Structure formats: C-alpha cells, structure tokens
C-alpha cells in the first residue's frame, strides 16, 4: 500500500514542481547566455534581469515545495479529502510515512535542481577558483576536499528545510486537535515546534560544550572560532538536525495514530 500512496503523493507534488524546475533551469541557461555574450550595457542589464529571475525561481521552488506539501498534508488528513484518506484500508502510520518519504524525496530533488541551476548559470573557471580559494583553508584543516565541504553545506541546508517542514506538520496535527481556530493554532504550534527544535539544538551544543572548552567560547566570547571548532559545529549540526527530524517524525506519527477528529 505504501507504494501506491507514494505514487499519488509524488504525482501530486511533482505535477507543479516540474513546471518550476523547468523554469528555473530555463532561466539558469538564459542567465548564462546573456552574461557571456559580450560586456555591452544592454546585455549586462538583461543578464541582471535574468539573474534576478533565476534567484526568484529558486526561492519559488523552495516555497512552492514547502507550501504544497503542507497544503496536501492538511487537505488529505483534515480537509474534505480526509473523508477518503481515513477510510482507505491503510493504517495511519503508513499514511504518515508516505507523506514523510514524499517530503524527503521532493525536497531533496528541489535542492538538487537549485544546485544544478546555479551551476548552469554561474559555472566558470573564475567562479570555481573563487570558491576554491575561499574554502581551501577550511578544507585543508578539515582534511577533506572543497567538494565535500560544499556537499556538507548543501546537506545541512536540506536538513534545515526538512526540519521547518516537519515542524509545520506537527503544527497542523496539533492545531487540528483544537475545536476552534484550527488554522491559527496550526501556525502557532508550527512555529512553537520549530523554536523548540532550535532550542533543543542549542541545548545539545551547550551540553557538548561542557566537555569542550573551545566550543564553550561560542557561548561566552565573541572571538572568531578556531577552524577545528567550526568543524565540530558542522558535525554537530548534521547529527542534531537528523535527530530532530526523526524525533519529530516519531512524535507526529504517534499523535496521528491516536486518531483524528475531522470537521
């Protein structure tokens, strides 16, 4: 059953995202063309416009992806369509799991398309050199390559977006346990959950800092951190965010499994 649910969930999200993906890539290509024709005034103006549009498209992808996932979650589980969803012979955990997997897949592909768009629009030897030079000192200390650092950065971004998304899900589930003002409570609980996860993150970092003097400086001084400390921070961020995502998943799945009360 999970496979079938995924089929419909993914179809629904990608139906619209595909359009934004194409637009984003299209403007990425345009940007590249116009920025590279010559250095005339007109061309650079058009190039600027294309750059602006490409950036707008990138944000569009992210916002649309998030909004669509939230709206479908709400419609499927609490709106008119909930009458169909909850009467399917499938248990609630599977219903929720399908939404979770759909979220991961679509967000991941969105982040990927964004990276590809940026690559198409701005890839050049100079730019790569620039990034390399910027990150090289970091990379050497990390005993890793520039590529790994870039990937780690993208991965943290992805985890953060996932975290925002899931906080929204928790908000929707909690908000709909109320009798009135479901929408308002959903948003409120969503924000609350997000802040809670951030608080949890800081708490864990602080906990680790108790055993690591360098990290403690993060809390007590304004000094720039040593590169090895930044390294630790990134590791911690990945671990904690991943942890957050799974904790929220289990909390939400449990809450949801207790049953719904739709209008």
């Amino acid at each position, binding site marked *: *059953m999970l496979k*079938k649910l995924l*089929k*419909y969930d993914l179809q*629904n999200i990608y139906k619209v995202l595909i359009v934004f993906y194409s637009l984003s890539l299209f403007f990425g290509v345009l940007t590249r063309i116009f920025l590279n024709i010559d250095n005339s005034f007109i061309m650079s103006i058009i190039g600027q416009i294309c750059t602006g549009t490409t950036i707008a498209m990138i944000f569009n992808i992210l916002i649309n992806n998030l909004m669509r996932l939230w709206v479908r979650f709400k419609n499927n589980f609490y709106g*008119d*369509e*909930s*009458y*169909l969803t*909850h*009467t*399917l*012979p*499938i*248990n609630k955990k599977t219903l929720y799991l399908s939404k979770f997997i759909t979220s991961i897949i679509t967000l991941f592909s969105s982040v990927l398309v964004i990276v590809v768009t940026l690559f198409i629009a701005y890839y050049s030897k100079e730019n790569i050199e620039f990034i390399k030079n910027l990150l090289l000192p970091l990379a050497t200390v990390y005993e890793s390559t520039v590529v790994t650092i870039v990937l780690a950065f993208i991965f943290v971004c992805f985890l953060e977006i996932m975290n925002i998304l899931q906080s929204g899900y928790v908000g929707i589930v909690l908000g709909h346990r109320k*009798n009135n003002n479901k929408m308002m409570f959903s948003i409120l609980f969503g924000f609350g959950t997000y802040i809670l996860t951030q608080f949890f993150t800081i708490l864990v970092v602080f906990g680790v800092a108790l055993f690591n003097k360098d990290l403690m400086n993060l809390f007590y001084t304004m000094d720039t951190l040593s590169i090895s400390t930044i390294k630790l921070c990134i590791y911690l961020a990945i671990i904690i965010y991943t942890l957050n995502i799974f904790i929220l998943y289990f909390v939400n799945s449990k809450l949801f499994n*207790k*049953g*719904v*009360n*739709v209008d």
Partner: protein
Amino acid sequence: MMKLLECININKSFGNKKVLKDINLIIPRGKIIGLLGKNGTGKSTLIKLINDLLTPTSGKILVNGKEVGVESKKIISYLPERTYLDKSMTVDQVIEYFEDFYDNFDSKKARKLLRDLDLDTTQKLSKMSKGMQEKVQLVLVMSRKADLYILDEPLGGVDPATRDYILDTILTNFNEGASVIISTHLISDVERILDEVIFIDKGKIILQSDSDELRRKENSSIDEIFRRMFKC
C-alpha cells in the same frame, strides 16, 4: 453469526458539548436500515465515528467483532455528505485510485453505471457540477462489494428524478447479504425500502424497530410516526 456492527456505550463530546449520549446499537446483516433524525441530532457524528473520522470520547465500536481499523475499512463502503475526491483528478483517475486501494472494487460495474450517466470519464471532477460529482461518488461507493454500506444523507437537496436515480442505484447495486445504513431527514422518500428504522434525537437513540411492524402497530407511515414523536 457475528454481529456486523455493534456500538457499545458510545459517548462523544466536542468540548463541553455532548453530541452523542450512551449509544448502544446493533446492526444485523442483510438489512437496509434508516438512521432517521432531524438535522444536527448526531447522525453524521455517529457515522463518522464508525468510519474512524472521529474518535469516541468513551465506548467501543466493533465491526465484525473487531475495533474500527484497517479490517473494518476493507468491508465498509462509505458515502459522506460532502464531495470528498481530489477535484484535480479525472473520473478515469479516480476509478484507478479506487482500484488501487480497494480489493473489492468492481471497476467494470462502475464504468457501466457511469456510462448510463452519459459521463465523459476523461473529464476532471472540478469541471463537473456538484450534482454530477455526487452521482460519481455514489457510483464508486456502490461499486464496491462491501459488507456494509453507509450512506450519509444521500438525498440531501436533490430533485425528484435524481432522488429516484439514487434510490434505484442503491437498491440495484448493494452486495447481496450486505447491510445498508441510510441516514436521512427526508423520511417519506426512503421509508419504502427500509427494513428497519432507528430514530435518533438529541444524541440519543429513541427507537429501533422493524419498519413494517411499526407501520402495523401505529397504523401510519414512518414519516407520520416520526413527525408525531418529534414535533417542532
């Protein structure tokens, strides 16, 4: 034989408001049963509880002796009061959806019934009138070989011709040996086909009886009896 559906001491409150009070109910197999009551007396709430769309405040609901869940959903075919399909889907897609999720869905039957409606199945639901969407839903629900059909206000606000179409479709298509629960406040329109009636008022079950028995005893139609009992 195990009871098809049993409600034991069901209570349901929304906040401080008690919507259902101590509902005890047994639905046998092979009967068409009318759940009759005025608007807002708890009919839909009871039906939503049976379909896992609400959780009871207290009490138990057993379907085939088991609590409401995946197994009960396999054998209950439910028509809600509202349009509940993804309106961005075409009729063909919705048929495929039902085929995917319900083992007992008979798509051939559904297609035949839809043909009788002169319906273009490549059309999106959002392009159809609300009345047509409701007919499509009825066809889908009645095309499942279920043990229990639960139809919530299937006659709400339809013209006489459509009403006949709906009653015919129900009567012609329900699975042999299955039970049908029809909730309605339009009693005179359906009473002819009912084996049993359940009167519900202010969240309580007032009466459950064989319908012909009741007519014989009171010498009048169910509609009459209901009106006498619940004068506004």
